[in-house]
C-alpha cells in the first residue's frame, strides 16, 4: 500500500468537525449536511471512475440506502445506528447482484443500464404503498442526543467512509482498478479475476452511496422518490468534474464550491439545474483537470510518449 497521508486526513477531518461544532444556524447546518452527503456521493462515483466506468446507478444506491433506513427505522422500529448501517448494507448487497449481471458491459452500455436502473428503482418506490408511494416516507428522526449535532455526526460518518475508499484506492487493489481502466486485457493475463475486482469496486462504492442515502434520510427526516432521480448522479458528476477527478480532494472541493453556489442560486429563484449544467460545461471547457488540475499542474497527457 502506498502512503495514505494520514496526518493530512486527521488534520482535515479534525478541522471539519471543529467547524461543524460551531454551526448553530439551521440553514447553515443544512448546507453543511448537503456538502458532506454530496461529497460522499461524488467520491463514490469517482471510485468507480477509477476503473473507467461512469456509474449512474450511484443515484439508485443513494435511494436504496435512504429507503432502507427509512423503512427499517419507521416500519420495523430498528434502532438508529442499525437503521443507518442497514442502508449501506442493503445498497452493497443489491450492488453485488446488479454488478454481477451488468459489469460485463462497459462504457456507454454500462452507463445506460445504470441510468435505467435508477429510474426503475425510483418507479418502484412510487408504486409501493408501504414505502409511501409518490409522497414518500416521513418521520425519519435521529435520536434526541444528536439534536444539534447532526452536521458533526454526518461529516464524521462521511469522512470515515471517504477515508476508507481512499485507503482502498491507494492499496494494491486500487492499482488493479487503474490497470482495468488503462488496459483490461493485460490485467486479465496475470491471473487477476477482473469481473470479481470490478464487482468489489462497485460494491464498495455502492455501500458508500447507500450510506450517503441513509445520512440524507436522517438529515431531511423526509424522503420521496423525487429525491433520487438520475440527477443525484449528474450532480455528483458535476462535483467530480469541477473539482477534478485526478485526486480525491477534487470531488471534495467541487462539492463544497457547487453546493454553496447552488444554495445561493436557489435564493435567486430556481434555475439551479441550469446552473449545474453550466458549471459542467465551463469546467470541461476551461478546466479539463478541474480545480485541482490548476493547483497541481497538468498531468502528463495520455498518448504522449514517443
Amino acid at each position, binding site marked *: 500500500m502506498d502512503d495514505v497521508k494520514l496526518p493530512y486526513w486527521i488534520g482535515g477531518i479534525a478541522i471539519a468537525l471543529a467547524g461543524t461544532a460551531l454551526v448553530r444556524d439551521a440553514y447553515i447546518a443544512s448546507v453543511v449536511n448537503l456538502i458532506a452527503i454530496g461529497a460522499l456521493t461524488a467520491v463514490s462515483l469517482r471510485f468507480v471512475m477509477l476503473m473507467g466506468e461512469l456509474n449512474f446507478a450511484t443515484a439508485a444506491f443513494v435511494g436504496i440506502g435512504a429507503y432502507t433506513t427509512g423503512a427499517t427505522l419507521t416500519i420495523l422500529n430498528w434502532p438508529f445506528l442499525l437503521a443507518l448501517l442497514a442502508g449501506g448494507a442493503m445498497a452493497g448487497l443489491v450492488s453485488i447482484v446488479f454488478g454481477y449481471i451488468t459489469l460485463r458491459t462497459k462504457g456507454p452500455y454500462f452507463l445506460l443500464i445504470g441510468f435505467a436502473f435508477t429510474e426503475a428503482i425510483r418507479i418502484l418506490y412510487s408504486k409501493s404503498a408501504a414505502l409511501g408511494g409518490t409522497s414518500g416516507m416521513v418521520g425519519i428522526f435521529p435520536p434526541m442526543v444528536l439534536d444539534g449535532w447532526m452536521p458533526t455526526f454526518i461529516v464524521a460518518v462521511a469522512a470515515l467512509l471517504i477515508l476508507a475508499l481512499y485507503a482502498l484506492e491507494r492499496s494494491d487493489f486500487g492499482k488493479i482498478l487503474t490497470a482495468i481502466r488503462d488496459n483490461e486485457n493485460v*490485467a486479465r493475463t*496475470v*491471473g487477476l479475476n477482473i469481473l470479481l475486482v470490478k464487482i468489489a469496486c462497485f460494491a464498495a462504492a455502492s455501500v458508500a452511496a447507500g450510506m450517503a442515502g441513509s445520512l440524507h434520510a436522517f438529515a431531511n427526516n423526509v424522503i420521496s422518490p423525487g429525491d433520487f432521480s438520475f440527477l443525484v448522479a449528474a450532480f455528483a458528476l458535476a462535483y467530480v468534474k469541477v473539482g477534478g477527478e485526478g485526486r480525491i480532494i477534487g470531488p471534495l472541493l467541487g462539492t463544497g464550491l457547487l453546493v454553496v453556489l447552488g444554495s445561493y442560486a436557489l435564493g435567486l429563484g430556481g434555475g439551479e439545474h441550469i446552473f449545474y449544467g453550466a458549471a459542467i460545461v465551463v469546467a470541461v471547457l476551461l478546466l479539463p483537470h478541474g480545480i485541482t488540475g490548476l493547483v497541481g499542474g497538468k498531468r*502528463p497527457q495520455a498518448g504522449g510518449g514517443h
Partner: protein
Amino acid sequence: MLTEQQPLLRTKGLTRRFGGLLAVSDLDLEIRPGEILGLIGPNGAGKSTTFNLISGFYKPSAGELFVFGENCTGRSPLAISRLGLVRTFQHGSLMRSMTVGDNILLGTIHGVRGSAQRRARVAETAEMLGLTAYLAEEAGNLPHGLQRLVSIGIAFAARPKLLCLDEPLTGLNQTEVANTLVVLKRIRDEFGCSVLLVEHNMKAVMRVCDRIVVLHHGQHLATGTPAEIRADQKVIEAYLGHRHEH
C-alpha cells in the same frame, strides 16, 4: 533429457474458423520444458490466432488444448493464466498511466502475498530487465524499447512456467533486440521458464530459439531447429513465393 518430460503445452488438431476463413487449421503444437520455441510465418499465417487460442482468448472451433497436462479446451483466459501460462499482446501490452513499478507490481498481485514480498518481487524483476532506474517513471512516457521490456516485466513478474510473447522485438533497434534476447535467455536459464516467441525478426528468432514452428495459411508447415528451418525448401517457398508464380 528434457524432451522426455511431458510437454508444457500441447495442441491436438487445434482449429479456428472466422466465418468462411480458416485462420488456424488442424494444428498440432508442442512446447517442451525449458525450451524457447519460435512461432513464425508470413503475415496472416495464423500466429496471432494461435496465440489467442492457447491463452484462452479465443475458443477453438475444433481440436484440443492441453496446458501443463490439463485439458484446457474452452477454458477462460483467467483459468489458463492461473495455471502459469502468461502472455503479452502485440500492441501496448502495458498500463500507460501507471508507473513502471506499479505495472510490474500488477503481475505479482495474484501470486504473491504481502506488500513487502510483492515489492521484493518487483525489484528482482526490474533488476533482471534493467528497469530499476525507471521504476518511478510513468510507463506511457518511456521510449518504445523500454515499454516493450515493461510488457515482458508485467508477465514475468507473475513467474509463469510458460511465457508467451507476441512480437516483443517489433520496433526495437539492434542493441535493444540483443538486450531483450539476453533477458529471454536469462528468464529461461535462471528461472526455468519456457518461452513461446511469436516474432517477425527472423535473425533474432534464429539466434535465440531452440526449435521453430512455421505456420503458413493457418497450417503447420515445418518444425525443426533453426538450422533445419533455414534449409527447409517449403519454408523458403512460403516466404519468397513459388518460383513458377510469375
